[in-house]
Structure formats: C-alpha cells, structure tokens
C-alpha cells in the first residue's frame, strides 16, 4: 500500500516545496485555500467529545505517528451536525476538504488509509466543502447539497466547525476583526448604534428588544461609566448554540463584544457563562488573551484611545442567572436573584451604572452586520424579525443538531427539510420551543414561522432557541409535569408566586400523572379540581411573578392545557395515558392461558401485588401494583400484559 510519508513525499504534495513568500500566501494558507500537507480536522467541541472525539483524536495522532506522515491535526468546533459526531475532515493538497462522520478510533485508520491514498472509503463520508480553486472529489456531494445544510443560512455559525477556534490568525484570515478596525477607524459610537438600529437586529435571548435602541439608551444615559455584559448563561435543557459559538468561533463573539462596548463607550465588558462549560471557558479565555496580545483589547485599542477589558465570569449554573438582573447580581457577587424593574439595567445596572446585557448570538451577529452593512442584514428575515436565528434541534427528529435559518422559516422546513423528519416514521405530536419556559405547540403549528411576533402569538417565545421535537410516544401531561418540576427546582425563591406556585403546579400535575398512595373515592374530583386550580394558578404566576423566569414558568403548562386538553382529561377521568409514559397509570394483568405458575414474578414483585401458588396461574392485585413493570420484563412466558 502506498502511503504518503515524510520520507517519500509523493507528487501530490508539491506545494510544500514552494515556500511561503507573500502575505497573501500566508493568508490563503490560513484560510486553507490550499494546504502544503494533509490537514486533518477533528471536531472537539463538547458534543464531539461526548461522542468520543478525543479518542478519535488520539487514534488519528497515533496513526500518523506510526505511518510517519507529516500532517496538520486541527481541532475545530462543531459544525452543527451533532448526529454525525465525531466528525473528521480531511483536506489534502490540491483537493477539496472532505468530511467524515461517526469516526471512531476503530475506523479512523481505515478511513485515513483510503483518503490519504486519494480513494474514497465506502462508508462514513458526509460531504465535501466546495472550493473554486481546488479539485473536487468525484461522486461526493457538496456540503450545501445535503438537506441538513441546504436550507440553512449560516451567518453566525459561518466559521463553526471549519476553523481552528484557538487560532486568532485563522479568524483574521477569514476577515475577522476587519469590522472592528472599520468601526474604530471610521465610526463614532453614535454611528455604530445607528447601523445596528438600521439593521433591525433584535435580542436573541427572549424579549426581542431592538439591540441598537438598547445601546443608544445606554449611550445617552449620562454616567461616567457603562458596562457591557454578554449573557452566555445558557442553562436550558436542549439548548447549546452559545456553547457552539464559544467553542467553535470565540473570536467572532469577542469582536462583537468589543464593537458593542465601543458603541456604548464601556471600558469594561463581562462575559458570563456557565462554569460547567469547561471547554468553552478555556477557549474563550485563550481567545481573549490572544485578542489582547494582538492589540484588540486593553489600553488604547488600535491607537484610537478606546480602552476595553473583557472579564470572564463563570456562573454556578443557576437557571435564573440567565435573567439579566439576576445575572448582574451574580456578577456583583451577590445572590443570583432578580430584582424589580424599573430601573432597567440599561439605565441602572451593574454597580448602579448603565449596563447593556446582550445575548451571545446577538453579539456574534454584530461583526457581520458591520461588514456587510445594515441593509444586507435587514434583507434577511421578515418585516419585523431580521437576520437569522440559530436553533438547537433535538428530540425525536432524524438529524439533531444546530441549525441556523432565516427568520420566517417555518417549523415544517426546520423539522422536515433540515431535520429529516421524525425518527422511525412516527407522527409528530408537539414542538417544544423556547426552552423550559417556552411552549408546546401542536402539529398544526408546523406552518407557523419562526419570528418574534408569530411565536409570541402562538404562546411560545424565541427564548433560548431550543426546538425539541416530540412524537406520539410523548405524554404531554408528563412533559408539562417535567417542566414544572424543572422550574420549581430552578426558582430562585424570592417571590411568592414562583416559589410556592411552581411547586403547587408540579404537585397538581403529579397527582394527575401518578397514582395516589391512598386511592379514595373522591380522587377524580380532586384531580379535576386540581386542573381547575392549575389554570388560575398559572394565570396568577404569569401575572404577578417578579422576573421573566416566573412570568413564563406557566407557559409549558398553559400551552399543554390549551393544545392537548384531551390528554389531560384522559389522565384525570379514564386514568389512561395514551402514550404509555405515565408508569403509574399502566394496569398490568396476567394472561391466565400463558402463565405457567413459575412464581418468578411473585418473588420479584417489590410490593407483593402478585398472588398465586406454584404451577397455577397468578394474579395481580391492582390496588397493590405500582406499575413498575418488573413482572412484565421478567416473565419468560410473555404472560404479563398491559391494559
């Protein structure tokens, strides 16, 4: 087998000898318009690591060592196609970059054997990245031809999964920090605010407040000091866009932060992210250090007299710290609890000074807007919602991952065109949008589009940007209970409606989905009364809670009640869970014909609910049965059935 090695450099790798002479050469190398030796890219974001990317990385390095091949091994961020992790891209001199999915230590060698010899392995190939000057691989799709990417418009995620996030040079080679230079050299703070206002950019965190207007309010508040905070406290289950940006393209965010700080004349910016995002913290800190070394941070940035320092604050992971006033309290070193507004942070925030709190994605959009102009940005999306939005697509969908689509794209396109539809050809039941305080939308909302107004009208919110797809195996009452449980744990405990109300909401739902320990005659009535209370309770919590978390906490419950009421009624009156999720509602019985009387189930039943003597059919006493399903699982004769 012919393998390229250091000693015998085959004809394909000729560029190595040409040497680098000009800046253009250097930049094109950094952009990987061409490579002088094979470059192997491995996605080592958290999602990749979880899938085993570090093992793959070790295996690849070992392979190269053994075969004595001189190649660049580059760790990249996540391209968004989480389903294919660990992802390995290979770019050979003169050839287009090609991407492989599900690369394990076991098959890495096999894949490399093939590709380094310019042959295409039969499996694991995802696509190739088209490039005008490079030779394409035959019979391989271009990356933007596969449905997952075809319908996406990657603005924020442009570089994620492609570049080496630890290299500021690579980011710069792709046009990074150009926007910052332009802003600092050409624009006044006022002008920057104006550009962002014109672009129509709105906050990606939840409320959708116009970003430019927020900056201007802060800028116009007379104070000696202002602060910028980047809110990266992404705590929603099923949301990972911010993490992808931190890990995949940290410099883009930093550039956005610097521009925003310049726009509001802040001397100090904070980036707040979860301490549990270890890799993100590490890459972000490194990137800040590199940016400072390159002169983009610190004193007198690019000779403009503008000073800025970025501080990274690691949050302990409280969900409520994503709420801006709680986040500010946390940065100040106090308990992470929200406080009343007004005064709004933009006039009186961190340490009592005007403070702009922006979401990670919002800030990551800024360099692009500066580069391509506000009218370009305003041309994307709908009348009121401009630009693109990154969603974390998860749940029972074929291709889970991170997708960036134009505002105004329909859920149908996201779930079916990009996500490839529902797994195992089941039916879609609900779409959960906006994280734990978002809403569950029914199937007929599929043609709703993702923009601020439509989502608000549908009782959902842009919120975190998580889309969880649920199929018919999901019990909506149980989902409502799950989110109520999540929120009662994440309530900060400051205001009464959220602290006490979320717990009662959870208990009411628990009563519906579970079997009460002492079943009494009036229990149906109690459950029914519970649901009656539930709506009132949810309304009061929404009406009176102190912060955004509390006010939106009843959303999952209210939306489930609105769209899936019949499921609640089934649970209450028929004690039946149509998707079979609510374990307590399952009624097990033993098929007399099939039971051989082996006594196995009788012995294993934890509550002694099964009676019978050896060699005669057994019976389950319904009142004693907790529905654990052990008998069902262990019966060798398939005699136990569920009603």
């Amino acid at each position, binding site marked *: 087998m012919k393998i390229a090695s250091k000693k015998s450099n085959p004809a394909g790798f000729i560029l190595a000898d040409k040497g680098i002479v000009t800046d253009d050469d250097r930049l094109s190398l950094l952009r990987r318009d061409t490579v002088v030796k094979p470059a192997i890219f491995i996605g080592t974001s958290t999602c990749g690591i979880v899938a085993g990317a570090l093992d793959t990385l070790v295996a690849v390095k070992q392979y190269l060592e053994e075969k004595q091949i001189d190649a660049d091994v580059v760790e990249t961020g996540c391209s968004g196609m989480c389903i294919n992790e660990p992802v390995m891209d290979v770019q050979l001199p003169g050839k287009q970059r090609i991407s492989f999915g599900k690369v394990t230590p076991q098959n890495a060698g096999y894949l490399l054997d093939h590709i380094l010899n310019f042959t295409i392995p039969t499996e694991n190939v995802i696509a190739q990245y088209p490039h005008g000057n490079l030779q394409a691989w035959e019979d391989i799709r271009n990356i933007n031809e596969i449905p997952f990417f075809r319908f996406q418009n990657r603005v924020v995620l442009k570089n994620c999964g492609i570049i080496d996030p630890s290299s500021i040079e690579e980011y710069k080679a792709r046009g990074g920090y150009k926007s910052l230079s332009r802003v600092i050299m050409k624009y006044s703070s006022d002008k920057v605010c104006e550009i962002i206002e014109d672009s129509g950019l709105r906050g990606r965190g939840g409320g959708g407040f116009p970003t430019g207007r927020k900056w201007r309010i802060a800028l116009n508040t007379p104070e000696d000091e202002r602060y910028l905070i980047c809110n990266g406290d992404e705590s929603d289950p099923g949301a990972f866009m911010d993490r992808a940006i931190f890990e995949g393209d940290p410099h883009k965010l930093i550039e956005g932060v610097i521009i925003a700080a310049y726009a509001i004349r802040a001397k100090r910016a904070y980036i707040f992210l979860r301490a549990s995002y270890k890799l993100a913290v590490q890459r972000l800190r490194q990137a800040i250090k590199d940016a400072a070394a390159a002169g983009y941070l610190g004193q007198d940035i690019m000779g403009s007299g503008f000073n800025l320092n970025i501080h990274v604050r690691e949050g302990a992971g409280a969900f409520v710290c994503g709420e801006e006033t709680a986040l500010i309290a946390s940065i100040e070193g106090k308990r992470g609890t929200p406080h009343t507004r007004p005064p709004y942070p933009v006039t009186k925030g961190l340490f009592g000074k005007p403070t702009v709190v922006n979401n990670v994605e919002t800030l990551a959009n800024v360099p692009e807007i500066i580069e391509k102009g506000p009218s370009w940005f305003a041309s994307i999306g709908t009348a009121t919602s401009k630009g693109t939005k990154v969603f974390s697509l998860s749940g029972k969908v074929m291709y889970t991952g991170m997708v960036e689509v134009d505002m105004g794209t329909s859920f149908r396109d996201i779930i079916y065109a990009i996500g490839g539809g529902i797994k195992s050809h089941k039916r879609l039941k609900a779409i959960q949008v906006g994280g734990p305080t978002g809403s569950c939308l029914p199937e007929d909302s599929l043609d709703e589009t993702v923009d601020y107004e439509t989502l608000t009208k549908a009782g959902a919110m842009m919120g975190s940007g998580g889309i969880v797809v649920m199929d018919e195996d999901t019990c909506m009452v149980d989902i409502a209970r799950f989110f109520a449980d999540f929120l009662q744990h994440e309530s900060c405990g400051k205001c009464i409606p959220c*602290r*006490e109300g979320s717990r009662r909401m959870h208990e009411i739902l628990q009563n519906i989905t579970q079997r009460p320990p002492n079943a009494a005659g009036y229990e149906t009535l109690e459950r029914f009364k519970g649901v009656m209370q539930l709506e009132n309770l949810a309304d009061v919590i929404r*009406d009176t809670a102190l912060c955004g978390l509390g006010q939106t906490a009843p959303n999952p419950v209210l939306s489930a009640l609105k769209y899936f009421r019949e499921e609640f009624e089934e649970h209450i009156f028929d004690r039946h869970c149509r998707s079979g999720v609510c374990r307590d509602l399952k009624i097990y019985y033993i098929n007399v014909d099939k039971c051989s009387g082996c006594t196995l189930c009788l012995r294993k039943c934890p509550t002694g609910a099964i009676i019978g003597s050896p060699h005669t059919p057994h019976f389950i006493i319904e009142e004693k049965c907790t529905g654990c399903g052990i008998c069902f699982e262990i019966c060798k004769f398939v005699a136990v059935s569920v009603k």
Partner: protein
Amino acid sequence: MNFPIEVNNKIIIARKGETILEALTRNGLKVPTLCHMTELNPTGSCRMCVVEVEGKANLITACSHPVEEWMKIKTHSPRVVNARKTNVELLLSNHPDDCLYCDRNGNCELQKFAAELNIRERRFTGKKNKYKTDPSGSSIVRDQAKCVLCGRCVRTCDEIMGVSTLGFIGRGNTTIIGPSFNRQLNLSSCIACGQCIMSCPTGALHEKRHSADLQHALHNTEKHVVIQYSPTLSISIGEELGMKPGKDLYGIINAALRKMGFDKIFDAAFAADLYIVELAAEMEKRMRSGGMVPMFSSDCPAWVKHVEQTYPEMIPHLSACKSPQQMFGAIIRSYYTTTFHVDIDNLYTVSAMPCTARKFESKREQMTQKGISDVDAVLTTREFNQFIRLNGIDTHQLEPEISDSPFHVQSSAGKLMGATGGLTEALIRTLYSRLAGKEIAQPKITEVRNVKDYKEYYMKIGEFKLGFAIVNSVKYAEKIINEIKAGRDDIHFVEVVACPGGCVNGGGQPFSNDQNIAKARIKSIYDNDEKDPIRFAHKNPAILDLYREYLGQPGGEKSESLLYTTYSKREVSL
C-alpha cells in the same frame, strides 16, 4: 412636579419621582404590602402590592414602580384581588396552620391578609417544608416553618442594623433564612437587639419567653419576687390600652404590679441614675488618671456584644460599669436582701425592659454571683403587657401609686436614657458637677436631642474640653471606631445604642406600623424632663442614701466589686 393620574376611575394627584404606592398612600388608598419597608429600597419580592395598569401585560408592583403621567391604575379589580388572594393562599399552603398556638396569634400580618382577603378554604394543598425551631439564642427564637421569606428581618439586620447576621440560604422553595452556614443563633454574630422580631410579619421570630417561669415564682409563697421595670415601659404600654402613643402610665404600672402580687416594685430609672453617677465617676477617673479614652457607653447589651465580637481590640474603651439592669440586680441581691432580711435563696428578681438583648445580658457569665444570675427573668414590653392581661388586671380601674422604697425616687436624668443622646445629656449634667464643682446652668442640651444617625457635641467643663459622639444604631459605629483607631483624640465619650432611636424603639416593644410612635415616646421623655423636680442623677436623694448607707462613694471599692464588670473577646461565625 405634580400631575393627575387615574386611579379606580377617579383622578388623584401624583408627584413626579414617587412610586405608585407612595402616590396611593398619600391619597388615602391602601394597597396591602408585605415585604415593603419605608426608607429602604423596594425588593418587590412579595407581590402583594400588585396593581393593574392599563397597557401593561402583567400586574405591576406599586412599591417599586415610579408613577407616570399616562397611568390608569386599578388597585382592587377582581384580577388584582384574585392575584393577591392566590398568593396569600400559596403562602398558607406552606404554613404550619397553627395560628392558635402561635406567638403572633391575633397580631400577625399573614393572618390579617387571610382575613381581609376572605380566605375560607384550603384550595392548595401539598407538601409543606418541615423545619425545627432554633431555640439556641438566649433572647431570640427562630421558627423557620412560619417564615414567609419576605426578607424584612434580613434587610433590617443588614441595612438598618449593619450586623448582617441573617441572610437567605438555599434556593427555590427550600430557601430559608438563617445565620451564616445556617448555624444556630447562639453561635452567630446576632447581637440580640430584636429589631428582626419587630420587622417580622409572622411568628417566625419572637423573644424567648420568661413569663411562664415568672408566673410560677409569683405564685410560690416562699419566693420573694422583686421587679424592676424600665421607665421606657411606662410610656410604651399605653397604646395597647387604647391611649395616645407616648402616654406616661408611671403610677398605673406600680398599681398593676402590686395587684398582681409582686413583693417589691422598683422603677429601674433609679438604677439609671446609679449608672450615670458611676459612669461619671469612671469618666472622671479616666480623664484625670490618663485612662483609656474615649470611653464607650456600656448600658446597651447589644452594643457590648457587638464590640466583643466585631471590635475586640476596642474592649478597653468600654466602660466597666454594668448596665442599669445588672446594677440594680446586684444591688437588690446584696444591699436590699441584707437590709430587708430577705433570704437570698428565695429571692426572685424580674426585670421588664423594652429590650430583647437584656435577656441575653442577664445570662452573661460576668453577671452572676456563685453561678446564680443577678436577674432571674427578663420580660419584654410585649410580654409585660401580656402578663398584665394574663393576671386579669383591668388597668383602666387603677389609681396611680408610687414604687417601693428604698429606691422610690428617680430623677428625670436617668429616664432620658430611653432616647438616643439621652445618656450623654444625663452624663454631662453629672460630669459637669464633678469636674466643674458646680451645677450646669442649663441642664437641657438641645444639640443632642435629635435622632440623627451620628452626632457630635463639644463642651468645655472646668479645665477640660470634652467631645461627645452619639451613635444612633450600631451600624454607624464603624466610622467613629475607625477614626479612633486612626488616632482621632478629640472625642472622649462615645454613646452607642443598638436600636435606631434608642430604647424607645427597642426590640421588645409592642408591634406597630406607626412610624411616629418612637418620636411620640421620645417627646414624652423630654416633656417629663421639663417638669421633673429632680433633673440630676447625683441629686437623687435615694441614690445619695444608698451611697451613704452602703456603697460609700461613686467608683469606690464597693462599687467596683458590685457594679463593675468585665468583657472578653467573642468568637462567633460572622
């Protein structure tokens, strides 16, 4: 700037910059509040003051929202009332439901809300948090189960007292309030001032009760029960009997106590006179012999504990004099028992004070003789009121009587100690006489008669130019202490009272929402001073008798052994 706003379809005039709540209150519209504390910034945690404002999607809190010109407000619409009611019901769903057994029964804000909102059914039932009470403190008992987490005690302790013992612990529906690391109160930095009790809307905080013990002693024929009551009491119990705040019931208390069967009734204003005489003697000694100046006052036990734990290096500055309560306790146990041939083993001394820290003080190791405390029980004003009711005394039918001899005369100087600045004023009167050899021409010193947080007063007495610092609440002591440490030497006496306003606003006083009540009591003290024939502690004939017959001279050997105490550094979890 004033502008009209619409409230409940009627026009009221609001002022620019005030909150909705302030505008409503000024116009006579009452919106219920729970976490709200006038003077402090709103936290908006209880959501009781929510109102409906046209154009706002959610209800907004009146306490925190500034009033704006376009506002159309509904304060009691069905939506608002339902929201308030639901929130109170939610609180009740996690409340012990044992009002009849509660310390605050009949005097509880939560109970009041439940009644006002007509809550007649338990709509929300579910798990309740279970907590144990913390009876470890010698003055204050905490019952977390009854806590509604309004945070008033936390803010009082932190923002008003500057002690910061209490804080929130944990999150969500398992949040609790407690001292640092959730340790017991007796190990904490609590100074037992009791202001948290005053701010608590429910029975989550209350004083450690001594009244049951007293009732036993009172009805034990072998026991000789002696009571000393603070002069502040006589101007504080009137309101509960339906009288004007500050009304002096001096003689009535004596009559009531006598009716209950106390063997001897003494007004602690006598001990206050004794304290002032001793303090002046100590002060003179320190001035003349180059002792540690400035001297810190030592009458407030909460302040003394604060020094012991927070500024142990300042302990030498503290006056060695026991507080009036403990001086009286010591005099009763020694002089009184020998003179009146009372069996010391059967003596039971009670003190009734507007203070919770006095309970702690009576249990201090230094305040005991042979292991027995000089003061056996301490009642707060609240307990005292209750004790009168318990014993079925109808105060309306009593005629004033005088307290018992030999301590039946009190000067008005000692009574000044109920208000901040009062001790300094009384001390100056006696000190003047000692240092200048003549009486002060104008005993009324207007400059020290106000409730400012911190004030200084300079006076030339004889050869000395003396500086007095008056600190109103321990929170403001830090500044002067740091200045003294930095070498400031023009201050010779520092008076500190832990509670803002002085003992009239002590932690043992009756609960009240009236902000002006402390002022009325202070006014009563000063009015009394104007008309009292004896305005100098050292002119009190009973005091002079006591020195002649027993103590010798102020600051003498006997005084030192009986009336002086020591202090030691305290290790607490700060």
